[in-house]
């Protein structure tokens, strides 16, 4: 049975949203998605899923606080402690197993409520083995960038090209928080923070909420919008140990892609997609993920970024939404945000960002530092 996305709701991403509580932000995302799908959550939804991490919310057992603002009072509801694509995978399984016809998947960031984000990331390190070293946890990204560039043959100028492309294209995206006319030269000369990682190589936190309505084929065909089919989905984790994980090639992304490609019967990824949305919480991650997903040959992602292959009209338009660098890092909502952007492109509703002839897209997420976890989804229309 096919499973399709029939409702997309995204609130505008902003550096802060003092006008909304996190509940009101979630309500806003939910009502947008339900209006898009043309459904009443009180009667038309079989199950609700949120994707959240208690330490990002700032209080315990966040799952208990989610039903009201999603229309899920006294309904089946659970929280996935992970990225939105992991939640989307749960929705696919619930529908394919016959538990529900229609499932809502929500994730959000109220990062502006977090006063000590660095401290939260540091708290994710191993308590006995790594924490005593102290220091800023983003040096983990510096380590990985260094290993990736040395191991793959990509160059730091290629990372600067990614920064410039994603910040600039975000100017065309009405939901983006950080669109700007940043040039490659600016990015390459921004202060080194965790060398080789520079200030502009890192995405900036934003607030925002993404809600998707997902339905089995029969139910999806009755809904208002053209379904965007989830042809394949996968997720995986590498070792939590910084000393054990693969620093050059992210195994979590490779394994998640293999799972999604197997379900979607994708044999030649580099020639299979009209659009890619891959995690770019740090600039080098976009290049690293493109190679892990076999969308670029090893060592060639940087060349694609330099030559315009990743831009609108290029061989494989990648992160034309602006990604996390341009739209903002919305934490666990990052994966759902990418799914939403790809779904709008597939529906031909991406506004000034719209590409021609988008029939199939690949989307990939990473949970952010210091994790080695993420998901991949293959999306398509028609067929």
């Amino acid at each position, binding site marked *: 049975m096919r499973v399709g996305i029939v409702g997309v709701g995204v609130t505008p991403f902003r550096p802060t*949203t*003092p*006008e*909304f*509580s*996190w*509940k*009101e932000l979630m*309500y806003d995302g939910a*009502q947008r998605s*339900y209006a898009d799908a043309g459904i*009443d*959550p*009180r009667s038309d939804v079989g199950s609700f899923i949120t994707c959240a991490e208690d*330490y990002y919310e*700032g*209080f315990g057992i966040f799952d208990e606080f989610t*039903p*009201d*603002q999603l*229309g899920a*009072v006294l309904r089946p509801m659970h929280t996935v402690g992970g990225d939105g694509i992991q939640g989307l995978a749960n929705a696919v399984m619930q529908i394919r197993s016959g538990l529900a016809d229609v499932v809502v998947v929500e994730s959000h960031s*109220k990062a*502006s*409520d*977090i*006063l*000590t984000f*660095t*401290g*939260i990331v*540091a*708290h994710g390190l191993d*308590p*006995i083995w790594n*924490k*005593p070293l102290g220091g800023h946890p983003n040096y983990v990204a510096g380590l990985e960038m260094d290993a990736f560039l040395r191991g793959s043959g990509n160059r730091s100028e290629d990372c600067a090209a990614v920064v410039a492309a994603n910040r600039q294209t975000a100017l065309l995206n009405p939901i983006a928080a950080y669109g700007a006319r940043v040039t490659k030269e600016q990015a390459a000369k921004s202060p080194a923070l965790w060398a080789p990682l520079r200030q502009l190589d890192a995405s900036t936190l934003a607030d925002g909420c993404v809600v998707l309505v997902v339905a089995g084929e029969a139910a999806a065909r009755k809904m208002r919008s053209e379904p965007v089919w989830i042809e394949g989905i996968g997720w995986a984790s590498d070792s939590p140990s910084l000393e054990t994980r693969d620093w050059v090639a992210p195994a979590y992304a490779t394994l998640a892609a293999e799972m999604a490609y197997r379900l979607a019967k994708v044999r030649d990824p580099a020639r299979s997609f009209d659009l890619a949305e891959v995690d770019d919480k740090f600039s080098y991650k976009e290049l690293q993920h493109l190679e892990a997903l076999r969308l670029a040959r090893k060592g060639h992602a940087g060349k694609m970024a330099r030559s315009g292959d990743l831009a609108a009209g290029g061989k494989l338009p990648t992160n034309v939404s602006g990604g996390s660098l341009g739209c903002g890092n919305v934490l666990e909502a990052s994966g759902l945000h990418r799914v939403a952007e790809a779904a709008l492109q597939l529906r031909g509703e991406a506004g000034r960002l719209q590409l021609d002839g988008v029939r199939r897209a690949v989307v990939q997420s990473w949970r952010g530092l210091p994790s080695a976890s993420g998901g991949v989804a293959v999306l398509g229309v028609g067929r």
Partner: protein
Amino acid sequence: MTANIARWPGAELGSKDLENGKVTTQRYRPDAKFAWSAGEAMSRFLAELQQGRLIARECKNCGRILFPPRMFCEECFRPTDEWVYVKDTGTIETYSISYLDTDARRITEPILVGVVSVDGASPKMGIMHYFGEMATGEIRIGMKVQAKWRPAESRVGSVLDIEYFRPLHGVDR
């Protein structure tokens, strides 16, 4: 059964052993600080508290008066419609007499705590708070109570602007 065992096998560790470094420990204090935006509904609610008033929102679809206020009705899943003041009086729905403090130490003067359904709000709408000016034997479900407000100059926009709820009888109204 455990009462029959005079001494458990193994070496007992006390807090002194930890403090004096007798055992290997790893101390870490996470730097986790948050400042939640109260949002539209709770911001107004807290501002009204500071003025000594309780405010709710009405959903004109189901007709309920939602307290504490929210900008959306969770039953109807639609925006709520109007601000409505509710009374600072109500009825005890449930209560507990707590003989332990937060460190689980025995206390001689028990803490009376419970849920008050607030007059003017819909059923199942109320506030959890302390009770005062009543004896342990006097408290009962269904008892009418009223908020004992802190003096205006010491209110800060917090649920603790109400010190506690006290019996309504004998209150000069």
